[in-house]
């Protein structure tokens, strides 16, 4: 695993205890904690790519992390083109890979 979330009990910033939630990403459950963005849940679980580019079929995930680059677009609960780095994850969110730019 490359990217990861700092375990709460070992974090010098002492975040409150986890409040686990699960989202479903391309049919697979991925665990996170309440308050994370969808990108945060994915990166925290070691997933770094979740979109395929239209022209080159290349994998993409987060690049700018603050809503500027649109690399991180996903479909959330049937709605396309949601920036994963901005959207807070909700329990049960169904996240689907997008196969191209809008």
């Amino acid at each position, binding site marked *: 695993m490359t*990217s990861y*979330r700092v375990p709460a009990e070992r974090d010098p910033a002492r975040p409150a205890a986890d409040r686990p939630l699960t989202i479903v990403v391309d049919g697979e459950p991925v665990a996170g904690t*309440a308050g994370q963005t969808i*990108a945060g849940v994915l990166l925290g679980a070691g997933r770094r790519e979740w979109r395929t580019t239209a022209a080159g079929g290349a994998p993409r995930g*987060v*690049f700018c992390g603050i809503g500027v680059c649109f690399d991180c677009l996903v479909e959330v609960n049937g709605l396309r083109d949601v*920036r994963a*780095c901005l959207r*807070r994850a909700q329990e049960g969110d169904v996240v689907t890979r997008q196969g191209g730019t*809008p």
Partner: protein
Amino acid sequence: MREVTRGGTTRDVVVVGAGPAGLAAALAAASAGARVTLLDAADGLGGQYWRHLPPERPAGREGLLHHKWAVFGELADTLRAHPAVTVLPTAQVWSLERHDGGVRLNVLVGEPDGEGRESLVLDPDALVLATGAHDRTLPFPGWQLPGVYSAGAAQALAKGERVAVGRRVVVAGAGPFLLPVASSLLQTGATVVGVHEAGRVGSLARGWLNRPWELAGATGKAGELAGYVSDLVRHRVPWRPREAVVAAHGVGQVEAVTIARLDDNWAPVAGTERLVEADAVCVSHGFTPRLELAIAAGCDLSPGRFVRVDDRQATSVPGVWAAGEITGIGGADAALAEGTVAGTAAAGGDTGSGAARTAGRARSRARGFAARIEAAHGIRAGWTAWLRDDTVVCRCEETTYGRVREVVELTGSREARSVKLTSRAGLGPCQARMCGRTLQELLAGPGACGDAEGAGGGTTSTVDRRPLVVPVRLGDLAALPAPRRSPSPLTAAESQPGGDRT
């Protein structure tokens, strides 16, 4: 409360952006007697500098991750409790129109990119723009691989999510910002393999040290930077000037990078390349101001393409003030001071006395120091030597450097607009935020595409103009409400689905 009147009513001031500049502006405007609406697209206050864990996961020791965390706490608490201030999180200003001498803001309130967000139209008496900046990354071969991040992304994820973007991380680019990024990564437990700064030692030393009396005056920033340096020393992280990541390699994601020495002009020196294993790379070469609202309002820009302001932070457009990184890269201290001056002036208050006067002096000091440091790290033209024909320049449309050159040769045009239309570079969903300035430099600078004589010239058309700040869903445009001067308290409360998350 003192009434500042215009046409007999309290002045309505709208502040866009709740980073250091916007928070200070909102408080100053309210203190000067205005009715204030503070908007931010994000769901918490603090902007980029004070990005923090969400209320679902409050940190016991958040202050460990920030400088001046106490300043933020006090600003945020005071604003939330202030009877004349409406704080509106998750409020995205998606366009700005000019009308009968004033400006109108079109706002969508609700989940980012959501459907059925509430529309709000505001016609303020005075507007303070404090929209900040995003970091800028120059393209290099492999920068589109997962595992390559802007340095800001690494920072945002570390501060806002406690997520480390990798275990073995290379930090590279230019500027003092690389230091807090490396520190934040260390605080997530990641190994920082090295910090590679493109700037030359000579200009860095001059920029940082040639006027030590300014250092003394700006202890805030100097002390902050010293803290980051000591973090690097403690963790034995090498900091190497005159070096750059000139390529990232890997199948499907980053596995290694090539680091090379640079000459004075930032061109890689042949024979100095070395391969370094890493699972993440965080790269930033400076900042790009978020100018779209200022441009839509008609504000003049400076030659360096920031919003031009006078001593009172007034833009060239009557009724519009600007503060923070959209007026120049100055750091959080400068942003706070500018915000105080801008907010006071926007409310019709006196900037020559009290807090605004003190802030005015602090602003000059902080700006002088930060501008000098920033200048020492400025981008130099030789970087294009690390591009290859297959290097992606536009991340959205996957337009390569070779394709841009081909289009210039085929069409004989170096005008950004026509090159964009033919090559598709800059036409994707980010609206050229990632590649616009790079394209412009590739087309206009000396040694530019198709510039055999190295004479430079080429295009000057602005790539920063974006009438729609963000993509808007068609459904959101239906039934726009009637304009208001400020949201009524009821509207404000209704339109915070997630509440203020700070």
